[in-house]
């Protein structure tokens, strides 16, 4: 019995680590840059495929290629914001219109990125085996790569939190999240900060993708599934709350693990049910202001 409980809880935490990372990225993009990025999952897919290619063709360790893929995904996100979202921001009379417009533009991006990827890599499952050895945790056995994933997710999350809390740029980002106009008046280069945030969000997705590729088979159409999970987690944690998203990721991972244990096919139904209920009862999420 104890082993079973341990099994479910640890599986939930392992899943939650990835969810948390994905959600922090989305939360950053929406909370600061005000872009509700439906194409978030496509950046996860890009990260996963970049890691897969580096591992299968050049034999580069996924944990090292993680660091290499980061800047690559960051640049894509950064320039997307500099070009596409900046001009949308300039042409929108108010933030509500910008939010709708940018969300729809993200739909477009989703289809563009995903279908270019399908044209290049096809739609089959891909995968590789890395650190695929069992580790015994008090009776429950887990693959080592999944444990590494959790470790990395927590490390990246913590590092990013410290960055936001203690650096000058972090302070600028928090200021921009609260009130972009005033932050701009106080000397924050607001356009730069928003583009950086969008880039950071993309990096989180890229990292998550690299970690996912270590544990699960990957596919060019995998993006939307993770986007949906990120949206649920972000709603759970409160739109725009970074800490909320991080905790929400683990919470949803645990819920998912428990539901899977009881009735695996109800998994998605329960996710959407929680999500719908949450939006009705408490749209601000568990940590929303």
């Amino acid at each position, binding site marked *: 019995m104890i082993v079973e409980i341990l099994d479910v809880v640890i599986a939930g935490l392992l899943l939650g680590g990835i969810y948390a990372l994905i959600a922090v990225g989305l939360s950053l993009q929406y909370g600061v840059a005000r872009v509700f990025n439906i194409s978030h999952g496509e950046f996860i897919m890009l990260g996963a495929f970049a890691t897969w290619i580096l591992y299968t063709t050049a034999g580069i360790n996924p944990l090292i290629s993680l660091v290499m893929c980061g800047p690559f995904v960051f640049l894509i996100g950064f320039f997307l914001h500099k070009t596409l979202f900046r001009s949308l921001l300039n042409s929108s009379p108010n933030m509500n219109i910008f939010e709708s417009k940018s969300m729809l533009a993200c739909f477009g991006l989703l289809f563009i990125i995903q279908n270019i990827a399908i044209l290049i890599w096809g739609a089959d499952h891909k995968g590789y085996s890395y650190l695929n050895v069992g580790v015994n945790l008090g009776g429950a056995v887990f693959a080592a790569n999944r444990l590494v994933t959790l470790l990395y997710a927590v490390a990246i999350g913590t590092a990013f939190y410290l960055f936001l809390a203690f650096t000058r740029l972090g302070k600028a980002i928090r200021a921009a999240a609260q009130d972009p106009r005033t932050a701009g008046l106080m000397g924050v280069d607001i356009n730069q900060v928003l583009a950086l945030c969008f880039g950071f969000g993309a990096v989180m997705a890229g990292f998550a993708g690299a970690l996912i590729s270590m544990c699960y088979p990957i596919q060019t159409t995998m993006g939307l599934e993770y986007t949906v999970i990120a949206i649920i987690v972000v709603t759970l944690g409160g739109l725009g709350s970074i800490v909320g998203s991080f905790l929400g990721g683990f919470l949803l991972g645990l819920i998912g693990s428990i539901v899977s244990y009881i009735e695996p096919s109800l998994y998605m*139904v329960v996710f959407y049910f929680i999500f719908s209920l949450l939006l009705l009862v408490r*749209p601000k999420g568990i940590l929303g202001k």
Partner: protein
Amino acid sequence: MDIATLKTPKNLITGAILLVILVLLATLPLYGPGYPVILLSSILMYVILTVGWVIFSAPTGYISLAPAAFFGFGIYTSAIIGKAIPFAVVVAIGGAASFCLALIVGALTLRLRGIYFAVFTFGLLMLIANSFNYYEIHFTGTRGRFVMVKGYDTIYFFMLGIFVLLMITATLIKHSKYGLALMSIGQEEEAAEHTGVNVVMVKVIIFAVSAFFMGAAGSVMATKWTYIDSGIAFYMLYSFMPVLMAIFGGMGQLYGPVIGAAIFTYLEELLITRFPEVYMLIFGIILVISILYLPDGLVGLIQESWKRFSVRKHADT
């Protein structure tokens, strides 16, 4: 629209053209069976979804991603009761089922604003799709079900009928006090409320009316596919397509979405079986370009260039 505006020559001409088009469309199956009828049925399906979406979302600015949910409700209605009852009644019930769903959903959720509403409607679609899937696997023991097949001509005439009804309804709404109320909600909801518009009631009713047509269209189209399951009936693209088609066509005029839907459906017919990736790629690129450079869509672009052209003509004389 009152009688006085109908009497001006310009409106008479427009009316005459519309009548001719309608007669042509209605007699189309007589000129010969086959492909045009099938293609036009698909076009009408997307036109109905798009115009239905535009009735509610264009003036209010609430982006609904629920069309696939209403469409799918219609499809399932047709699959469940289609065998026992006359087809026209089935279609009406399909529409009514979606109408009721929209009424409940609308009453619960229309206080959510902006991005929350879009996200919720998307979540709702996925919740319904997954629940149907779960129910089918665990209680009926099968995945999906068969639908009574109808002839292509029957499908076509029903779609045409729904389309005409929808266009009349859309025009009436646009020119009534409800249309004005919707627009005022889109511009400034608080102000609309203070000037005495019953904001919640107007939103919920128009939302439900738009869902009625989507549901009716769904219950007609179900008979074309012979087999349906929750994946086909609640296919996500039925929610995204209307949004794109409306933006591409332009939402300022009612014929904008119609043109947008017609162009895209034709493109889909050409490309989707042979190059599905290319089609979806083009879809994405056009969506981004339309949002960036065509704020009023294709119709807006044409009107703009026409205006420039006529200004230049006047300047020359």
